[in-house]
Structures are given as structure tokens and as C-alpha cells.
């Protein structure tokens, strides 16, 4: 699907810009990955005994797949609220640089901060990637409306996927329910691997996978935090050492 040219009268109304944003959901392959991810999250929430309303509320109000998985799996395995909150907030730090880098693309001299609140909420990895692809084709004064449309479309798609995944996990044979649960680790592993731009990210991913089983032996209740901080710090150390070696 091609967006109208920048000087087209299609862009004269914010409402139309919103609509073009919603339609753009259909032209992104990432929407398919998002659908599979949220299908998996719905199934995971079902099998960890959360209600469907809880699952949908987490998608609408948290709107970050990794944070939702961490929340569901830590709470489901008996972590305290504080432990889950710490793990979620560490995973969510990456949203900070995303918001910082994406909002200037939508800002005009007349934009007030409150106009950007919904856009900031909708910012997650999918929207962040798509902003760089779509926004150059959207007139600056219509970009917020366009992003609201694109973001709301993605949230809606995810809510539908969540519901389908939840109901499938409840009603499918054990084999297919297992297959849907397996979507979560697979989509996250490969989309994270794809996003590894620096050496540190790749090492963190590999070490994080390898160290988790070791961290469970400590039985601290903070296994994921322990393996994450250790693996991430080692990866950062390698990154520093290599930067020094080059310089």
C-alpha cells in the first residue's frame, strides 16, 4: 500500500491521517510478528491462570511484549510484586531511548508536550521501527494523528490476537496448545536477535540464555534478574574491552 503524496489533499484532515495510520498496519510484516507474539502471550496468560480481562488490560496499558511476558512468568512462578516490578522496570528502560528518539520526528514548533502523551504510550519496538519507515512520507503536522492511527491499529490487532490465543489455549488439544505457547520464546528470540546491532547485544542474548539455568541453581527467587545483570554486565565489559583494543 502506498501513502498519498505529501502535498495530497488527503492529508488536510487529521481524521484522514489517523485512518491512513490504521491502514498502514496492513502493510507491515512486523504486524504479523506482533500477531504471533500476542497469540503466544494470550496462551501463556491462560496457562499461568490469569483472566482474559487481566491479559487484555496488560496489553492495552503496558503495551510492551517483553514486559508482559516477564510480568506473567515471574508472577506465575511465585515471585513477589516487588521482584516482578524490578524485573519489568529493567526490561522497560529500553523504552526511554526509543521515546527520546521518536518524538522529535513528530514535533512541530506548536506541539505541546501533552499532545505527545498518547504517542509516547504507543511507542514500543514495532512502532519505533515503523516510524522510521513511514514518517518521512507523512507531512509533519499530520504525523501525530498518523501515529495515533498506526499505534491504535497495532494495539487492536494485538488485543484480537490475545483473545484468540487465550481461547485457543483453553480449548485446543494439548499438542496445539503447546505449539501456541512455543510462539512466545521463538518470536522473542528471533526478533531480539534481529535487533542486535552491537556486539554487546549479541553477547548479552547468548549469555543470558546460557546463564539462566545456572542462576536457577541459586534458587534466590530473583533468578532472571541475577542472570540478566551478570550476563549484561559481562557483555558490556566485552564491548568496553573491544572498544579500547580498537582505540
Amino acid at each position, binding site marked *: 500500500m502506498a501513502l498519498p503524496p505529501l502535498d495530497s489533499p488527503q492529508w488536510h484532515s487529521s481524521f484522514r491521517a489517523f485512518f491512513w495510520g490504521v491502514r498502514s498496519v496492513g502493510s507491515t510484516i512486523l504486524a504479523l510478528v506482533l500477531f504471533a507474539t500476542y497469540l503466544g502471550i494470550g496462551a501463556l496468560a491462560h496457562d499461568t491462570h490469569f*483472566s482474559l480481562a487481566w491479559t487484555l488490560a496488560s496489553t492495552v496499558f503496558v503495551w510492551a511484549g517483553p514486559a508482559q511476558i516477564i*510480568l506473567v512468568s515471574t508472577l506465575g512462578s511465585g515471585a513477589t510484586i516487588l521482584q516482578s516490578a524490578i524485573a519489568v522496570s529493567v526490561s522497560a528502560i529500553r523504552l526511554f531511548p526509543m521515546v527520546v528518539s521518536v518524538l522529535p520526528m513528530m514535533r512541530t514548533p506548536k506541539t505541546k508536550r501533552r499532545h505527545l502523551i498518547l504517542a509516547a504510550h504507543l511507542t514500543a519496538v514495532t512502532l519505533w521501527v515503523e516510524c522510521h519507515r513511514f514518517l518521512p512520507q507523512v507531512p509533519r503536522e499530520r504525523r501525530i494523528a498518523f501515529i495515533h492511527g498506526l499505534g491504535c491499529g497495532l494495539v487492536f490487532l494485538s488485543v484480537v490476537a490475545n483473545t484468540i490465543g487465550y481461547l485457543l489455549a483453553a480449548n485446543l488439544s494439548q499438542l496445539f496448545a503447546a505449539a501456541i505457547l512455543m510462539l512466545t520464546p521463538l518470536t522473542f528470540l528471533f526478533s531480539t536477535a534481529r535487533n542486535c546491532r552491537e556486539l554487546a547485544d549479541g553477547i548479552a542474548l547468548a549469555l543470558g540464555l546460557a546463564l539462566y539455568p545456572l542462576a536457577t541453581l541459586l534458587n534466590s527467587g530473583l533468578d532472571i534478574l541475577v542472570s540478566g545483570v551478570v550476563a549484561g554486565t559481562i557483555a558490556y565489559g566485552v564491548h568496553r574491552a573491544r572498544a579500547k583494543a580498537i582505540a
Partner: protein
Amino acid sequence: MSTFIGDWHALVVLFVAGVIPNQIWRMLGLWFGGGLDEGSELLVWVRAVATAILAGVIAQIVVQPPGALASVPALLRYGAVAAGFAAFMLSRRSIFAGVAVGEVILVGGQWWLG
């Protein structure tokens, strides 16, 4: 309806442990955006730790699987991830190829084992 909403306590936990720790970072980005360099050393470390935590969660689901996934033998779960990863690399990092191969191995293997 009560099964749809579940227990209210869980919804409170969702906000305290899920929504607030997550939204804080977006709102900080909105508030302080512009002053921070995306390539700064602190952010490299933060991103590495965040990636490793996510890796830990992926490992947790595969090693100590929830619900129906626990009915699949451990070796088959690891094999499916490994085969998916091989397909991902061979297809020049196609997420779709990795997920499809991983799922086919999992379902096919389990079906074959009976």
C-alpha cells in the same frame, strides 16, 4: 463475567508491578527527551542488561515451561529452538523462517512420539 475479570487483586498487581514500572520510562523519555545520546555508554549497558533479562525469560519458558508446553519432552523443546535458530541464520535472519521451522519440529516431533 466473573471468570472474564478474574480477581481484582490481580488487576491491582498488574498496575503496581506492570503498568507503573513500564510507563515511568516512557514518561521520562517524554519529559527529558533530547538531552540524552542514544549511543551513550550507560545506555549500552542498560540495553545489554535488558536484552539478557529477556533472554532469561525466553530460557525460563523453554526450560521450565508453563501449562501444555510441559507435556513436550525437554530435548524436543531444545531441539525445536535450535532448529529454528539454524533456519533463522540460514535465511539471513528471517523471523518467519525461524518461527515456522521451530514450530514444525515441535509439532512434528511430538506427533511422531505419539
